């Protein structure tokens, strides 16, 4: 069953066939997770009594369900509800993206809530004292600081999500892991090298982001006078 490819060809083929899907899943689910997560965080911090339980309930539920289970729920059990995306491949992609995004939103909401609450309460009072309403103060004073403060935590979330996209291969999404597995079946003797190739690809796409957003930005925050510690 040995095929015609050498290890370098395999690396290139895994990148060409698998990387676009991995990156698309990561970026889209982070974006949707960002929007939903930020909304949940704002609801939890500012919403009137009662409404915040929706956000709390959401977080409790989606942080308590394993991602693989979510992917099976949306991608295997409820797939026909996503057929409106146009094709079966789109529906599968949407199901995987939705699982990742809904789970990520629950985590991101905690990141943003922590960041919003770590902006000094006096900032809100000061903004209101110069005539802003709560929305203006949140939009112009609190969020710009909170989003900067959330960067280290958010970089961590990126690192989690890009690696968790590998679970989408369970419903046949052609990502890095799905392709790598196919190559290990055709080249069973090369199992370890192929898996190491994938490990390196994931690392290369995780390290720069965590390094820049997670570490360099923390230094910059200190120069801006944001955040505690030294």
């Amino acid at each position: 069953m040995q095929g015609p490819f050498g290890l370098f060809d395999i690396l290139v083929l895994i990148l060409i066939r698998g990387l676009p899907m991995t990156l698309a899943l990561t970026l889209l689910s982070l974006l949707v997770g960002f929007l939903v997560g930020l909304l949940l965080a704002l609801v939890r911090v500012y919403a009137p009594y009662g409404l915040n339980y929706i956000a709390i309930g959401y977080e409790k539920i989606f942080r308590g369900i394993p991602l693989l289970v979510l992917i099976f729920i949306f991608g295997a059990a409820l797939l026909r509800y996503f057929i409106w995306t146009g094709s079966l491949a789109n529906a599968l992609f949407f199901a995987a993206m939705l699982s990742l995004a809904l789970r990520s939103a629950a985590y991101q909401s905690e990141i943003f809530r922590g960041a919003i609450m770590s902006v000094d309460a006096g900032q809100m009072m000061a903004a209101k004292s110069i005539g802003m309403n709560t929305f203006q103060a949140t939009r112009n004073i609190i969020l710009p600081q909170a989003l900067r403060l959330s960067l280290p935590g958010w970089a961590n979330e990126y690192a989690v999500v890009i690696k968790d996209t590998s679970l989408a291969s369970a419903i046949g999404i052609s990502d890095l892991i799905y392709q790598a597995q196919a190559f290990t079946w055709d080249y069973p003797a090369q199992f370890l090298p192929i898996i190491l190739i994938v490990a390196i690809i994931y690392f290369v796409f995780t390290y720069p982001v965590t390094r820049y957003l997670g570490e360099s930005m923390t230094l910059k925050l200190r120069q801006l006078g944001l955040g505690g510690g030294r």
Partner: protein
Amino acid sequence: MMSILLVIGLVVGFGVGYMIPGLTPPVTPPDDYDVITDRGTIIVGTNSGWPPFEMLNTTTDELYGFDIDLAELVADYIGVTVEWVDMDFDALIGACQAGSIDMIASATFITAARCEVLQPLCWYIRTNEVVVVKANSTLTISSLDDLVGYTVGAQTGTTEDEELSEIAGVDLVRYPLVETMFQDLNAGALDAVYVDEPIVALYSTVYSIKIIFTVTAPPTAFYIRYGSDRLSAAINSAIAEGFADGSVDALIAQWFG
């Protein structure tokens, strides 16, 4: 107070959600055969990595194998094209019940448990299940019960998994991937592995392994949901005609030769 409200909210929410299907009037679902012919495609679920039944061709990046060809033959007979979904084997039966896929073509044995929830179609091949050990192993068995006390690997959700689960005392390790199972056998973490015979051929080119025990497996068939006699009749006729005109035998010769 807050946590009580949360609990009440969850109970009411799930309760209402549970009731809603009962509140809407029942509608007769359209026949699966009409759904498939109207759509022009049949959605078939498989789990690649199971040579020679279903594999992903790393040269063309497309599925190929015996089940793939046979399902295409069935689809041609009905006059539709195949849309493939390649998902974990454990998820296939649930996905077919839920209507996410129309048919399972994944070297699936006919077992009583599966027949309770899904309709098996005309069976098309019988293979063997085999117990495999390392070539230098001294283990010999005369029945599966002799595996008691040994660490044995099987793929999750397969018939081998079910058969071994029923024998108390076997230290059964379940693997989602066959590849990792053979890795562990080679590394000495497993005393034996219980798998379908056709896939052993692939791994015997990489590892020094030997077959010590053979069981005739249940027949292999495609599965669909219960409820459409026209769909099952069409697929069964397709397979029967395929046997009659020799095209299924040609496929068997091609893939198992």
